[in-house]
């Protein structure tokens, strides 16, 4: 049973196409993220679902109802904004009651449902306060309570955690995921933060320049990126210039720098083309000492400590620099610059796509 689906949904402003033709189907109770860099059209899609932006083409269905031309107040959705967008002139209680009153809920029933929604976000005691008397995290929780109180068919989130500081953001991710599982409301979550998208979603839709790149589970998105863009956007990639040296099925080999040749499992370009080569930092296995067969030789150029992980800038003999990552506690966690190291990279974690600067 699909709860929300788009059929060839698109939006253009004059000549400029913001969203191409996106088709996707979200199942009942599913948590789906729209992930992409700013300007990829993800927020436009969300606003089209909410009815705040009219699509240029395509259809939006909630359940089996075509809502494409319905105004926002007839769609029965809950929307949570990055800016919280609480009603500053109303108390927390009245903010949460707003949608219920619109649905003609009143009296004891209203009181019960508002308190239930506030309890869900652990703000039971704050009903009489005004939004300006709450912290950012509390305000966002009120916004969530306000969105879920009328029991919407679909919940929409527009970068809801972006205005919160890092620690609070992590807490809210877990809280939000638990809340969504508990309520079982179909959810569409827009974010530019891959951590948020991967950790909370059942499925992730990666967008670039208005085009859907991949729609799959977080595991598939991370381990089996469908396009070079997904590979370069997810994880912490090294991005290098290279040439396609040989082709063999989906993969082949790539030439980097002055003669380094690497096998790659996914190449999105023709033989001889200039490509951007993407190698994840965390996919490079680094060990001190001389390289064995199939490994690359290099020397440490720089070490950078970031808590749980250590990043090394490794200079290879062919004039190529790579960033490699290891856990910060272990045998190779404190190598000095100049130390010779060996690197092993799986062909499966090397991706190549047509170079952005050059014509493919």
């Amino acid at each position: 049973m699909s709860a929300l689906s788009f059929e060839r949904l698109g939006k253009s402003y004059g000549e400029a196409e913001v969203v191409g033709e996106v088709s996707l189907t979200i199942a009942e109770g599913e948590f789906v993220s729209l992930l992409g860099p700013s300007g990829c059209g993800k927020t436009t899609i969300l606003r089209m679902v909410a009815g705040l932006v009219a699509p240029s083409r395509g259809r939006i269905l909630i359940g089996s109802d075509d809502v494409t031309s319905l105004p926002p107040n007839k769609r029965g959705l809950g929307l949570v904004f990055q800016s919280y967008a609480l009603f500053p002139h109303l108390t927390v209680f009245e903010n949460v009651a707003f949608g219920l009153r619109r649905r003609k809920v009143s009296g004891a029933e209203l009181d019960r449902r508002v308190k239930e929604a506030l309890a869900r976000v652990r703000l039971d005691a704050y009903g009489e306060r005004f939004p300006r008397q709450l912290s950012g995290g509390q305000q966002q929780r009120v916004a969530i309570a306000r969105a879920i109180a009328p029991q919407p068919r679909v919940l929409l989130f527009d970068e809801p955690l972006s205005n919160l500081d890092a620690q609070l953001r992590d807490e809210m991710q877990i809280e939000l995921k638990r809340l969504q599982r508990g309520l079982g409301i179909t959810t569409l979550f827009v974010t530019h933060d891959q951590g948020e998208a991967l950790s909370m979603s059942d499925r992730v839709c990666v967008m670039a320049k208005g085009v859907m790149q991949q729609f799959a589970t977080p595991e598939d998105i991370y381990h089996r990126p469908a396009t070079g863009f997904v590979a370069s956007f997810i994880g912490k990639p090294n991005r290098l210039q290279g040439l396609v040296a040989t082709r063999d099925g989906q993969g082949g080999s790539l030439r980097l720098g002055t003669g380094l040749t690497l096998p790659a499992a996914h190449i999105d370009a023709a033989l001889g083309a200039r490509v951007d080569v993407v190698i994840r930092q965390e996919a490079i296995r680094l060990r001190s000492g001389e390289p064995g067969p199939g490994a690359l030789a290099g020397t440490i150029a720089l070490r950078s400590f970031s808590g749980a992980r250590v990043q090394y800038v490794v200079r290879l003999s062919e004039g190529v620099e790579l960033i490699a990552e290891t856990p910060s506690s272990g045998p190779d966690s404190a190598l000095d610059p100049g130390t010779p190291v060996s690197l092993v990279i799986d062909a499966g974690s090397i991706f190549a796509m047509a170079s952005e600067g050059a014509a493919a």
Partner: protein
Amino acid sequence: MIAPRHGLMLLAPLALVLAGFFLLPVLMMLPTSFREYAPGTGIAPGVWTLENYTRIVTDDYYREVIWRTLGLGLFVTLACLLLGYPLAFLIARGPERWRVPLILLVIFPMMLNLVVRSFGWIALLSNRGLVNNLLIQLGLIATPLKLMFNLTGLMIGLTHIYLPFMVLMLVAAIRNVPRDVEAAAATLGSSRLHVFAAVTLPLSASGILAGSILVFVLTISALVTPRMLGGPTYKVMATLIYDEYMQLLDWPSGSALSFALTAMAIGVIWLSSRLTKRWAGMA
């Protein structure tokens, strides 16, 4: 941030000018308002009285002028609000390229001298003015409507003159209403009309209040337009005070009326602020 000490220094020049040339002379009028005026001779020496103030409350004519002034202030403020809000909404929310031309149109009348604009209304509103002539020639009325030397004339003229102040205040306030908050109301089930009534209007309350206070105060203290459109007999407080001072030379009575006008203005501002804050949830 500016330190309080520096803030005081920045404030000092204006504060000194205001204290020396505004506050002090006004306060010097305060004793005058408690003196007795003897027609023909001037202020009676050594006599102190409250009669100038009690007369304002007890004298039927003064009372009529006070109610007329307050009513005029209220009507003009409401008219400016009703006419100005849609226009301000259009300027704030309409196409970007309309904004500057529309604002220029709004402030354009202010470039003309007040006397000229008031004369313009005399030409339009008098018994043989453009409006009455047109209505008579169209056969809609047989005898001219009385549009001058009464409340109608003053309302029309003052509304026209103070509308720009209201519009400019409202444009700023409406532009400050966050669109996301309106969108939130819409997704929660509010129709466009309900979004406006429940969100846009209360969130622009600060501008409604500021514009209303400005227009109200300007209206009840206006002198030139009421004098020209009201004539010598249809008086409001400002023209009455002017006549007490300049025609009757009754300074004590004029001073008392001036302070009464100031007190009324402050009272109305205080009351309307409180009501607006309660309505819009501002603390």
